[in-house]
């Protein structure tokens, strides 16, 4: 079923703030096996010019994807989430995410397409800190594979 084109450009309300914890950053860095001290050692991060430990580049996806979930599960959009796969992912950083950030995400549907029976959804998530400053933008392309003919 083709998705409704009228959703293109729709912006969802900002999410409640997510507070970035230093132990969560450590846990993520350990999970990807990355010993870079900028993720765990405040002094090392400061030596690089950061006010506190920073998060690995893809850390913020957990936050933006949760926000995108509100879009994906919008019953009016009618996307079959059980058939969704991740197509593309991109981030553009104003600065790295760091411990202590309180981040909100504002999601916008950038494009809705149908190709060979697949529904393709492009979602942009703008991430801002507590001061309202832009931190990072995440673009997520989701593909809902065509349902098999019964």
């Amino acid at each position: 079923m083709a998705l409704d084109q009228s959703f293109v450009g729709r912006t969802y309300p900002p999410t409640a703030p997510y507070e970035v914890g230093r132990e969560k950053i450590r846990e993520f860095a350990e999970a990807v096996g990355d010993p870079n001290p900028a993720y765990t050692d405040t002094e090392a991060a400061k030596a690089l010019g950061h006010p506190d430990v920073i998060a690995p580049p893809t850390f913020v996806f957990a936050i933006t994807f949760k926000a995108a979930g509100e879009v994906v599960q919008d019953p009016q959009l009618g996307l079959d989430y059980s058939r969704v796969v991740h197509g593309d992912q991109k981030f553009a950083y104003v600065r790295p995410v760091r411990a202590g950030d309180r981040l909100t995400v504002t999601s916008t549907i950038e494009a809705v397409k149908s190709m060979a029976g697949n529904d393709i959804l492009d979602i942009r998530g703008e991430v801002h800190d507590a001061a309202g400053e832009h931190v990072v933008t995440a673009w997520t392309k989701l593909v809902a594979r065509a349902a098999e003919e019964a």
Partner: protein
Amino acid sequence: MTAKIAYSDVEVGTELPARSFPVDRATLVRYAGASGDFNPIHWNERFAKEVGLPDVIAHGMFTMAEAIRVVTDWTGDPGAVVEYGVRFTRPVVVPDDDKGAVIEVGGKVAAKLDDHTVRVDLTATCGGQKVLGMSRALVRLA
């Protein structure tokens, strides 16, 4: 931001040190917990096969996180990454044996841009097959 690589020291074609990243079932369980992505295709073989996959597959975002390490290890400062994007072209299948899978990542400078920024093109393969496409990072050097 203080990248340890100077813009003036790199040329188009400069290769970044390649890396191999092993991934087994324990890696995926740990990544699921850290990232909050508990999709069963990443830990439940029965479920993965039911939805038509050959076996449990790695999180695409895990592969994306590993691939950028070639860049962040090179620059020293992960904050030097200005932009990073990938296309997930093929899943990394992770068998339940004592080896798991290995993701091989390479990178080279593809363009020198303004403001001490370079574009690095990354390659990521598993078992000789490409798992990421259009994998590119913009990186601000010293």
